[in-house]
């Protein structure tokens, strides 16, 4: 597959595929980070507060890297975040749901569901035909490894106790359908282009099946119940229409919580009548 070197040489189809892929990546990381920061000064202990804040900053740093690639296509940060219509964000609904106060089971389970998908998605980007994407994957992977282990440590610890187990089950019932939207298309044709152009070397269906084949047995081993079963489904997993929630995120349909969140996070920018955003760091290499 020929590398798509120069953003100026991209045709309309290539451009749209690249933009769509990057928005999926960046918006997921950005919105998840935004939700994680809700735990700052509210986590179960000072130490766990520090650890989750670290993960929030990691995810936000990754979002920054992906938004920066979008700047190759002529976008600026304010258009991508502060002035973008909330309905144009492409993140999965999993990352936009608010946390109920004290629901640490949600925080760690959501992290597990997301990070397991993130690991697969990054693998499928290692040889991306857009070199800047491939270049940035390694750095992100090295930080994500900690997240997945951190999430699993907590999930296993909570699953061990009666209250923790019940809370995990409740969180799973609520989150699982939304986690599946991680593998939903923004637009089916564009998603096909993303793979055909070699931007990512696995289809959403493949990623979704692989993800199910990992998370379902793992969660079952903790005696958690899922709407799919590794026993019944005979080693093949498929995401079907009835498993999905009404709002899918990727297609621009979002839960009400997202509009509220976007409103809050753009508050200062709007209140001060800003038209650009402050950079502290140099542009990423």
């Amino acid at each position, binding site marked *: 597959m020929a590398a798509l070197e120069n953003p100026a040489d991209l045709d309309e189809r290539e451009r749209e595929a690249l933009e769509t892929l990057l928005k999926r990546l960046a918006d997921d990381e950005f919105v998840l980070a935004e939700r994680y920061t809700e735990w700052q000064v509210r986590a*179960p202990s000072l130490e766990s507060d520090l650890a989750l*804040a670290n993960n929030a900053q990691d995810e936000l740093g990754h979002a920054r890297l992906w938004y920066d690639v979008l700047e190759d296509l002529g976008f600026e940060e304010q258009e991508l975040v502060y002035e973008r219509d909330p309905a144009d964000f492409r993140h999965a609904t999993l990352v936009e749901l608010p946390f109920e106060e004290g629901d640490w089971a949600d925080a760690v389970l959501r992290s597990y569901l997301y990070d397991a998908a993130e690991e697969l998605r990054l693998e499928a980007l290692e040889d991306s035909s857009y070199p800047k994407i491939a270049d940035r994957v390694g750095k992100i992977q090295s930080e994500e490894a900690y997240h997945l282990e951190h999430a699993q440590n907590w999930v296993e610890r909570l699953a061990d106790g009666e209250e923790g187990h019940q809370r995990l089950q409740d969180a799973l019932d609520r989150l699982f359908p939304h986690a599946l939207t991680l593998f939903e298309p923004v637009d089916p044709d564009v998603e096909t282009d993303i793979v055909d152009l070699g931007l990512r070397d696995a289809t959403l269906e493949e990623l979704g099946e692989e993800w199910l084949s990992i998370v379902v047995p793992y969660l079952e081993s903790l005696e958690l119940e899922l709407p799919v079963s590794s026993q019944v489904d005979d080693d093949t997993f498929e995401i079907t229409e009835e498993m999905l929630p009404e709002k899918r995120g990727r297609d621009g349909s979002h839960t009400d919580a997202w509009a509220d969140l976007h409103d809050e996070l753009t508050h200062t920018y709007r209140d001060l009548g800003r038209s650009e955003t402050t950079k502290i*760091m140099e542009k990423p290499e």
Partner: protein
Amino acid sequence: MDLNTVKERAGPREFSPADDLPREYREAATRMIEFHANSEIMGAYLERPFIRQAPSIDRKLAFSAKVQDEIGHGQLLYRAAESLGVKTREEMLDDLANGDGKFLNCFHYPLKSWVEIPMISFFVDGAAMRRQATLRRTSWEPYAHAMDKVCFEEGFHVKHGEDILKELMTGSRAEQQRTQEAFEEWWPRIIQFFGPTDDKSTHHDFAASVGLKQQSNDELRDAFLDQYIPKARKHGLEIPDEPRIRERDDGTYAVEEGDLDWDEFFTIAKNDYEPGLGQINGRKQAQEAVQWVRETIEDDATTAGGHAPQAAD
């Protein structure tokens, strides 16, 4: 060790958990460090909504990192306090939640808008850093060690705060004006950060005599004014007329204490000030909401430690 020996020996980093120290010393040190630790937590609690409201990704990252650092400082300080053997961290955090734990006056006020951020992140943090730098020579070694790490990190906070101030004061006219208004509102509180004049401070004499405290309230307040009045002016802020501030012949400053509202200050000191109570209770609710997780971890820790009954067989 008796109290007289403590007073004789009281030098920088002189006493450690290996020393047998009198109750008076351990209680005074606990009170002081617990206050400091509580202030880190309540400061972080006050600022945390602005992680979300920060007006750019880089600012959001810096703000998240800053709030994270404050929690890290709380972690270090509660350990330094705990090592005196008077109270556990859990007891201190419970007291903070119940409204019995005391903390800095500035963190009792509501923080409503981004233009107020430099008041905390630059001026209050700058004031705190003045004091913390002197506490690297406190007599309780674990406290001094915590201060080494806190001072190492804190330079980022103060400089980041100043960067936000600079941006606002070089921004639109409205931004400049609103920042000046915020400064006028916060300025007296910031000066009161250092507490009442030494004549009225109840705990100073003892803490100074056993080497816990290295400089008096008055010395620290004056040192703050000398450094930060010129800074404020450089950024185009006008120093409010009240409280009156006198410039001495040598170019240093002193404040007219009578111009400050000490009734409000002492109401705050007793945790009786309304907005502060709201913050205390908000944090209490958050702490209680995750009590179930702490119970889960503690059960595990007992089992893993091998001290649980089932380890006998």
